[in-house]
């Protein structure tokens, strides 16, 4: 175990022998854009199926829901971006705070939904059955979105695997919640908000548990 400068020299020699040109990692924003292509593809399919009218009508009636949707989109983009940035060694850990403003908007505007009965008494409120559908929707879409992020980040070098995995979970859950806006037949109430929070927490926790391991192998 004592210092052996020769073994370090031998290692450098061996690494030099095995040197081949490498393709540099693309900038974080470009890789984020690549991931957003998949989200956009899902969005296009859902829009083709449901049309934009129900969503726009609902947003016009309840602007706080529109803000929540925009907050979810910002959270998805910024969390994915932060995850890609943290995949490069030497980047500031403060990148992890990037999704915070979007998440505050998302959570804050959704929270207004709890006051639904005062703001817009006429809107439909989700029952327990519909809430379960929301849960499955968010988790179901989060799986391929998380998987793609993990694959893309394994090519990078996330030195903080668990933090990166949490960001992956947040990005995919927020993106799924954004997609849910397209086909959400009802407005957020306390039960619905709770379901969304549960789904997001489950996706983030699953990623932290599994993703951390998947990423640290890279």
């Amino acid at each position, binding site marked *: *175990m*004592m*210092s*052996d*400068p020769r*073994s*370090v020299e031998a*290692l*450098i*020699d061996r*690494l*030099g*022998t*095995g*040197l*081949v*040109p*490498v*393709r*540099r*990692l693309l*900038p*974080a*924003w470009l890789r984020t*854009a690549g991931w*957003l292509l998949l*989200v*956009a593809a899902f*969005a296009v399919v859902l829009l083709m199926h449901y049309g934009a009218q129900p969503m726009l009508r609902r947003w016009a009636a309840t602007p706080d829901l529109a803000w929540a*949707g*925009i907050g979810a*989109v*910002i959270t998805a*983009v*910024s969390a994915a*971006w932060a995850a890609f940035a943290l*995949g*490069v*060694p*030497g*980047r*500031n850990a403060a*990148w992890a705070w*990037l999704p915070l403003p979007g998440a505050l908007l998302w959570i804050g505007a959704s929270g207004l939904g709890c006051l639904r009965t005062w703001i817009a008494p006429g809107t439909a409120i989700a029952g327990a059955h519909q809430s379960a559908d929301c849960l499955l929707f968010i988790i179901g879409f989060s799986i391929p979105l998380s998987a793609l992020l993990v694959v893309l980040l394994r*090519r*990078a*070098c996330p*030195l903080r695997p668990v933090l990166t995995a949490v960001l992956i979970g947040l990005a995919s859950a927020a993106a799924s919640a*954004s997609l849910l806006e397209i086909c959400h037949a009802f407005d957020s109430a306390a039960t619905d908000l709770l379901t969304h929070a549960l789904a997001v927490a489950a996706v983030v926790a699953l990623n932290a548990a599994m993703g951390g391991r998947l990423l640290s192998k890279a």
Partner: protein
Amino acid sequence: MSQVLTATGLMGLDSGLSLWASLDQTVPADLTAANDSESPGQRRAAWMAAAQGGDRRAYEKLLGDSVALIRAAARRQGVAPDHLDDVVQETLITVHRVRHTYDPARSYDAWLTAIANRRAIDALRSRGRRDSRELQDDFALDRHPDADDASAATESEQRARRLHEAIAELPPGQREAVEQLGLKERSLDEAAELTGRNTGALKVNLHRALKTLRERFHGEP
């Protein structure tokens, strides 16, 4: 539509953030470069950029130059001098594997130090785990009955040897009585028959022998 809007909005945010990050990292290098044409940090960054293109000479110079930086980072993390070389090797292997993640527009030293710090922490953790396991093993060994058995066996062996020596030194009559009655566990009648002595004499000899032995062992300090 809102996706596109927010994406472009965040692109501005990113360039702002990366400007802030690069200011943080490159200002010292720029200051040192004011006197010299190229600082060591800039030289290493250029070597790494060349190594990414497959330049072996630049790569080997870079790795040789990196060893001191890695050792310094590991020492700052609290790695013991004996284990610095392990961290150096682990870090060099990681550097080789993830060399495509280095962005030549940024500081090589910051990139390398982040990897070295991580490997140093890994080394400390695995050493901590190993040490705690070894500590528990020592503890178990202390408590394990085998330890007592081993020393006890040696001790009783020594005691038996000393007893045999003492018996051998007894006068012939007494020794005969101990051997027949004590060691071979014969009855008085059997012993009398075998030795040709009467039972009374055997009893007397045994008592005398025991007295002699008792005095010998208890008299000893």
